[in-house]
């Protein structure tokens, strides 16, 4: 086994997603501890183009295959190639982002090579011969320390936003892999993508979120939140009550059965703060709540609690911020 750390890079328009930079950052720390290298893997058309940005965040070598198969088929080719690389390089750990694709590929890879698998990872700490993974469980109410045993390799699914990308410039060398996919990986074939909303919302990636709840009373007032969010560069989230009422699509739901977010600023507007909502947002750096009920539970975890009517306060706030930015 080497002390190298492998990172699986998810791409968006040919560039690494923010989560990939988070993985590179923690991998660079782990690798430095054991004297190993950070090996990143990017698959699909134009993957080599990710090298510059990845190098800036501490990646030593980028392994790429630009075969179109990685866009045509789900999971199987990715696992096939990763399993070969795990065998060839014998890394100490492979890091994935805890996303839909990350979960699928990581689970299949760990099952194939007999690795230990830990999800919900919020921290990784290198010790002499092993890595401690800190796993967030029960919606962040507990953090457990998990160690891999009975396995040579640890596969870790890292929570988006658990790490802040930190630059540590290297010039990542690109190695193009010689990979010819067999027919056995041509199974789950991807077809067209249908977007139901104007644009894809990615709450997990947002650093500012303005969320609305039942207090909004209908779909139209979400426009007020959109205007405020636009002014402060944020995305719009929602409580389940607002989603269940059909005021806003499910993709916006924050909480136990929705997204888990960790923005630097979370504004809760007309949301009471039920425990199932809190588990999805309570680790935000700063929480501001607007609610007309002085006893709303959301106020217990707010850095700023404003008691009042959202319909009057939100437009006034948007105007005030506009005024200050203009000044």
């Amino acid at each position, binding site marked *: 086994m080497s002390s190298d750390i492998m990172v699986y890079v998810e791409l968006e328009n040919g560039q690494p997603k923010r989560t990939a930079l988070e993985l590179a950052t923690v991998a660079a720390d782990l690798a430095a501890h054991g004297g190993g290298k950070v090996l990143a893997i990017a698959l699909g058309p134009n993957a080599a183009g990710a090298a510059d940005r990845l190098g800036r965040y501490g990646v030593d070598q980028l392994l790429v295959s630009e075969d179109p198969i990685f866009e045509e088929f*789900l999971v*199987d080719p990715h696992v096939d190639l990763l399993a070969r690389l795990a065998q060839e390089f014998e890394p100490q750990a492979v890091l994935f982002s805890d996303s*839909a694709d990350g*979960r*699928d590929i990581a*689970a*299949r890879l760990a*099952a*194939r090579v007999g690795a*230990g698998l*830990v999800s*919900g990872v919020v921290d990784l700490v290198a010790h002499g011969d092993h890595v401690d993974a800190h796993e967030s469980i*029960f919606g*962040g*109410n*507990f*953090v*457990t320390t*998990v*160690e*891999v*045993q*009975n396995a040579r390799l640890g596969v870790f*699914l890292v929570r988006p936003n658990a790490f802040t990308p930190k630059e540590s410039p290297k010039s990542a060398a690109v190695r193009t892999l010689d990979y010819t996919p067999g027919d056995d990986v041509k*199974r*789950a*074939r*991807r*077809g*067209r*993508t*249908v977007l*139901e*909303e104007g*644009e*894809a919302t990615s709450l997990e990636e947002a650093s500012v979120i303005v969320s609305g709840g039942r207090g909004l009373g209908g779909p139209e007032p979400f426009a007020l939140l959109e205007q405020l969010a636009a002014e402060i560069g944020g995305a719009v989230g929602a409580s389940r009550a607002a989603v269940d009422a059909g005021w806003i699509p*499910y993709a916006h739901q924050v909480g136990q*059965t929705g997204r888990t977010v960790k923005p*630097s600023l979370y504004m809760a507007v007309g949301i009471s703060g039920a425990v*199932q909502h809190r588990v999805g947002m*309570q680790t935000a750096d*700063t929480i*501001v709540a*607007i609610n007309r009920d*002085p006893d709303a539970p959301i*106020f*217990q*975890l*707010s*850095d*700023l*609690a*404003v008691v009042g009517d959202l319909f*009057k*306060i939100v437009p*006034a706030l948007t*105007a*005030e*911020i506009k005024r*200050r930015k203009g000044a």
Partner: protein
Amino acid sequence: MNIVVCVKQVPDTTARKELGPDFRLNRAALESVVNPFDEYAIEEALRLKEANGGEVVVLVMGPPSAEDIIRKTLAMGADRAVHVTDPALAGTDWSGTCAVLSTALRRIPHDLVLTGTESTDARSGLVPGGLSEALGIPLVTYAVKLELDAESIKVHRQVPGGYQEVQTPLPAVVSVVKGANEPRYPSLKGIMSAKRKEIQKLTLADLDIDPASVGLHGARTVVTASQARAEKSSGEVARPETPEEAAVIIADFLQARKYI
């Protein structure tokens, strides 16, 4: 069209959770329910069966008490259930769970294996991938819609902002998302007939699984410590007289912290 739905018994999520001295969830203190995410998989299986014929079998790995939630799935309309239960399973992790479920699945004829997207206690969503690998069949997760034809299945797979169409040969493992359908409530007739439906009990010996390969000993991960999250203390409270005053208070706060 034979469908097996993997269903997990989980503690009621609305209850407060505690960890025992071994850092495992103190399940005894909590009431158990069908994993809420699995209800969508059961409903999808029942609809596929109604349209295409065949059999819906529920597969559960869990303690003897899981029989209650198994009856509920039979009352919803599943034809029969397989319940893998064995004292040696206590403390089984992801790898052991996948080994046991996939071994059981090999003995139940299936064209399709459906799961929930994740369990509310583990929340990892990793069992579907483990099963697909162990069975050597394709995996499609986050299905919002399933359409069958003879040898294959078309899945609408949820992606941010919409869905992607995925076509895969059968058999396959497919996980069904919350909201894909509206799970039915058991009817009175369903509840009555559930009492007569078969629940096949299997032990590790029945499945030829070495008890040392599962449980805490067989686990590939071990929990060595646990910490409860520190409660965040509440901060400033403002009761402004006018909306303009509120706007100034919030804007000052955001400006001081460099959000604007």
